[in-house]
């Protein structure tokens, strides 16, 4: 088993499994967020549940944070190792001749997503922690819809979110579709899976972008 931990294939499995875990989280996230457009009441209920349920707060949330950290730390480790594997670069390297741009630039799309996560954590997670544990404010199950819409009032934040969702789409386009290959699956079902993954990579980021733009252009009138 120690050989597995040190091997290049183990790092591949870790990237694929942590990525698949984050994909499942994205499904949950986009579903709740869409409720903010179609049913503010349900959005408030779901957000309140996620914010105060001990299982979500103290088990699922730490697991999610670990998943994110593992995915990006392993991404950096792999990138450093890969650079070392070609210590002298080509004078001419025609990467576009044999591989799509998205697959060759996962580190850059990943870095943009990481920067976005910092902003996103500042916007929502830090705010939540401050509200609940620093200010020790009372529970208010109706505040979430208002707070979310308010966040998208500034044009700059909306644009940053939309651009990041674009990069998320590119990251998913290659990462999600190739995750089963990394785990060793390449059979008659993987063709269908790759199609599904690519549809997912378009639809989910578009849904996130739609939500941000919708709230920007439909502010709450005081």
């Amino acid at each position, binding site marked *: 088993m120690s050989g597995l931990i040190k091997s290049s294939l183990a790092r591949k499995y870790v990237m694929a499994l942590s990525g698949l875990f984050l994909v499942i989280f994205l499904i949950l996230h986009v579903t709740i967020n869409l409720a903010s457009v179609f049913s503010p009441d349900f959005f408030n209920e779901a957000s309140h549940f996620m914010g105060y349920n001990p299982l979500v707060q103290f088990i699922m949330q730490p697991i999610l944070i670990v998943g994110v950290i593992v995915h990006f730390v392993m991404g950096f480790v792999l990138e450093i190792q890969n650079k070392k594997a070609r210590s002298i670069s080509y004078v001419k390297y025609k990467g576009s001749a044999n591989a799509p741009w998205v697959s060759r630039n996962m580190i850059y799309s990943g870095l943009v997503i990481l920067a976005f996560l910092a902003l996103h954590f500042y916007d929502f997670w830090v705010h939540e922690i401050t509200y609940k544990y620093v200010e020790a404010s009372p529970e208010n199950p109706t505040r979430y819809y208002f707070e979310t819409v308010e966040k998208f009032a500034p044009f700059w934040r909306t644009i940053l979110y939309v651009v990041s969702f674009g990069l998320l789409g590119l990251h998913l386009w290659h990462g999600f579709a190739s995750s089963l290959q990394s*785990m060793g699956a390449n059979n008659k079902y993987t063709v269908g899976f790759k199609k599904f993954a690519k549809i997912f990579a378009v639809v989910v980021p578009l849904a996130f972008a739609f939500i941000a733009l919708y709230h920007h252009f439909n502010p709450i009138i005081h």
Partner: protein
Amino acid sequence: MKLYLKIWRQKDASSPGKIVDYTLDGVEGDMSFLEMLDILNEELVSKGEEPVEFDHDCREGICGTCSLQINGEPHGPDRLVTTCQLHMRKFNDGDTIVIEPFRATAFPVIKDLIVDRSAFERIQQAGGYISVNTSGNTVDANSIPINKHDADEAMDAATCIGCGACVAACKNASAMLFTSAKVSQFALLPQGKVEAVERVQNMVRQMDLEGFGNCTNTGACEVECPKGISLTNIARMNREYLSATLKG
């Protein structure tokens, strides 16, 4: 046709290299790429200059000896051919052609365009074989029935000539296509299953020790492979390795 060549020249493994410009006239479309370099070398020798060193052997696309990164692609712009089978008709009069050695830390340059690819041999030695008795009691391989699909896939994997184009093409200099082809050619056959667990573990361990990069599924190796080795072999190796490790 007249060509402008930019060729990597390096005296030896420890000296720094650089790109040197050459102009070569009278190149014909029916020449192979290596014949074009032969003519360049004849000119250089006649002028008393050091010829350009490059690897070659069979010149029939089967030995895996020739290499060369040509205009940013291993074995040049054509598909499913090695450098020796690349014809100059793929280029135009007045073209500039950049010729470099395959680049990977695990493939150090020996001289000019020649690289040391013995890392592949060490991976092969780590497990790319089956242990059979050759003392006179050897059973004919054809006496064991083998599913046609498996036999075909094993044969496809075995067509890997170990040229290193997969490493040269990969942005990470990963050797997973080569290693997986050598794992697959045995993993699919009954004779290979006996040592399957040790084979994949030992070959992957040696691949890592050699300093190759990690596979990020870009698929560049499959596109540039002169023998069309499929990415399905990498998936098979990933599966075999996971299974072997879980079995202990």
